[in-house]
């Protein structure tokens, strides 16, 4: 369960949007929409823990009863997916995926998990491939798998479909939300395309507050 209480971000003393009060249960999606510059990506940065200090953030952010603000980035267990897949270019597919896997798994278990994940995504046998040889859609899938394999407790999607072409988008979208439902974690999605939002999500529309 992820919740924001009286949540607001301000820059140079000016608030960017009205206070947000909402919560997202596991397997559910919170969608944040708004025009460019309304603060969507800033919220993502804040939740993942990399909000630049020029911004001030007030209100509570809690994930599974933990106050996220008290935790540094690496301890928050928040997974994030950007528009760019940001796959590590110097590692192959397997090495990219294994990077997020917790130390507690043995090598055999890691291999098993990765192979299963790749099979789920229709990419079996791709583990030794150089990521530069993959297509855009394949890379996007690997990127999501990588994030999911790190077992986050919350996942943030920052306009993850905007770089994919139309034909791919619909298919990829469905696959992503199916995977996320399996994970039993809440999702926060930021997008300016209303088609991206699955049915049954809570939608928050950010109005830019003009001074």
């Amino acid at each position, binding site marked *: 369960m992820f919740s924001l209480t009286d949540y607001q971000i301000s820059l140079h003393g000016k608030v960017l949007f009205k206070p947000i009060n909402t919560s997202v249960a596991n397997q559910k999606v919170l969608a944040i929409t708004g025009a460019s510059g309304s603060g969507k990506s800033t919220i993502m940065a804040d939740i993942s823990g990399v909000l630049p*200090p020029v911004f001030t953030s007030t209100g509570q952010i809690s994930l599974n009863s933990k106050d996220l603000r008290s935790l540094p980035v690496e301890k928050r267990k928040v997974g994030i997916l950007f528009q760019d897949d940001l796959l590590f*270019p*110097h590692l192959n597919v397997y090495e990219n995926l294994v990077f997020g896997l917790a130390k507690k798994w043995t090598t055999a278990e890691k291999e098993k998990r990765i192979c299963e994940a790749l099979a789920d995504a229709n990419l079996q046998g791709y583990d030794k491939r150089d990521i530069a040889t993959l297509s855009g859609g394949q890379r996007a899938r690997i990127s999501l798998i990588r994030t999911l394999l790190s077992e986050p407790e919350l996942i943030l999607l920052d306009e993850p479909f905007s770089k994919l072409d139309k034909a791919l988008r619909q298919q990829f979208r469905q696959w992503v939300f199916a995977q996320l439902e399996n994970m039993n974690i809440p999702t926060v999605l930021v997008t300016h395309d209303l088609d991206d939002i699955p049915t049954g999500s809570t939608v928050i529309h950010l109005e830019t507050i003009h001074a």
Partner: protein
Amino acid sequence: MEKTRQVHPLAIFPLLTTGVFLIPVILGLLGTWLPAFGYFPAIGLDRISLQPWVDLFNHPSFFSAVAKTLISGIGASVLAILLTAILLIGTYPSRFFNAIERVLAPILSVPHAAFAIGISYLITPSGWFIRGAESVFGWFPVPPLWTTFQDPWGVSLIITLALKEMPFLLFMSLAVLPSLNTSKALWLSKSMGNGARFAWLWLLLPQLYRQIKLPFFAVIAFSLTVVDIALIAGPTTPPTLAVLITQLFNDPNLLQRTVGAAGATTLLALVMASLLITHLAEWPLRELRSAFIRHGRQTSHWMSWEKPMALVLALGIGLVYLCSTLVTFIWSFAQRWRFPDILPNEFSVRAWARVFERIGEPFWCTFWLAILSACIALVLVILVLENEVRLRWQRGRFDTSKALWLIYLPLLVPQIAFLFGFQVALIQIGWDGQFIALLWSHLVFVVPYVFLTLSGPYRKFDDRFFWQALSLRQARYPAYWRIKFPMLLRPILYAFSTGFAVSIAQYLPTLFIGAGYFSTITTEAVAMSTGSDRRMTAVLALWQQILPLSIFALATLLPALRFRSRRAMQQR
């Protein structure tokens, strides 16, 4: 991020690093200005006086040395930038230019002394070029009576300097060329009825100049104050001012030190004046530029002579570098080499054997100095750049252009204007003649070059990779060492090789701060070059070149090997 009121550990590194290369300069300048005005307690002078200046101006060679310095220094700098401009106009952008880019690194890694020595084997009256002319055209049955090397007005010095500095200017231009939008500018210019030459002269080159102004200033400072190349290729009696000052500093009569200090201060003033004039000259040139753009007069022929000239130039310079290394190599194995033969009549490895016997200590000294200074500089620079990442994230924007002047300071202040003072300061704290002091003096020059080479690529790194790694692995060090560092491996290794090469090339620091306890391959090579044994000199020059070249080779091979199956990591 935790909001902490304490100072972040990274924040001390900019200060520390600046201190490393600035403290010697400041101490050194003070330590040279005081003796210049007669205050030199070490030899019993404890009163300010103008006697050193009187002695200096009365020195028989002083004014002629100043004249030669100005002629060769300004001449070489102007020639260097002209050559760079012609090359760019004629060959950028093109596949030929990409080829030039690829050979720049080995060309830049040739240390000054080795290069000057190689040139000497080419252009002296009995050098390879004349021999070639004799073989092909039969013009020179005996070596001509020309003074083509170490000529009294410094022409050979100008040529040698310009040939060494032009690749450096080209290299510094490389980073800014993409941002000039040459194709757009050329298109724009042609659409207004002016030729490509117009676009280059009045639009692109001025923009380029603005961006490489500091490196150009470094070139001017270097040309005016270089000692090792001037010793090898410059006029001998009387020499340039920098060489004269070095002689004064080594004079057995200690009083001459104060005269030397006065001379060093004069040289500093000359450099500052030249830089100021160059800076001020921008205004009239800018007016000229506006006038030309307004009147827009320009013939519309396509670049008639620039392209062929640039081609000839590029090939010519490449050939010179190649031949100078080749002829040095041949000389090292020559036993008997009569004029006008192109190749020696008899070969022997005697020179190599003799050098091998005596090279042990200088070699290791050179090697350790270079490795340690490159490593320390690299660590310091990376920490400073990481701190910059932190600051950029904190403040949103971060203006680094002011800091650039600071980085260039050790490259703009003449070495000879502060090394003496630095040595005096070291004597006071008992570090004179210690390896650590010598290392520090090398760091003063290695750190700026490592910073200049690494900062560009490091700042371009997309930090989202790091955040992504952080959120995946939940730990900072793996995120850095397994993701950021490998992704930056090529620039990091390249910066390391550059630092290494800079240390190898250092001559004056070893001479002064080494205080006679340490000798490097460079000091040995320069000393040997003033003698008459060409073969030994050749061997030493080659040793001097082999070291940086091998490190550069490693720096190219290692990433190529490691990332051989990663298409995204190949060099552009």
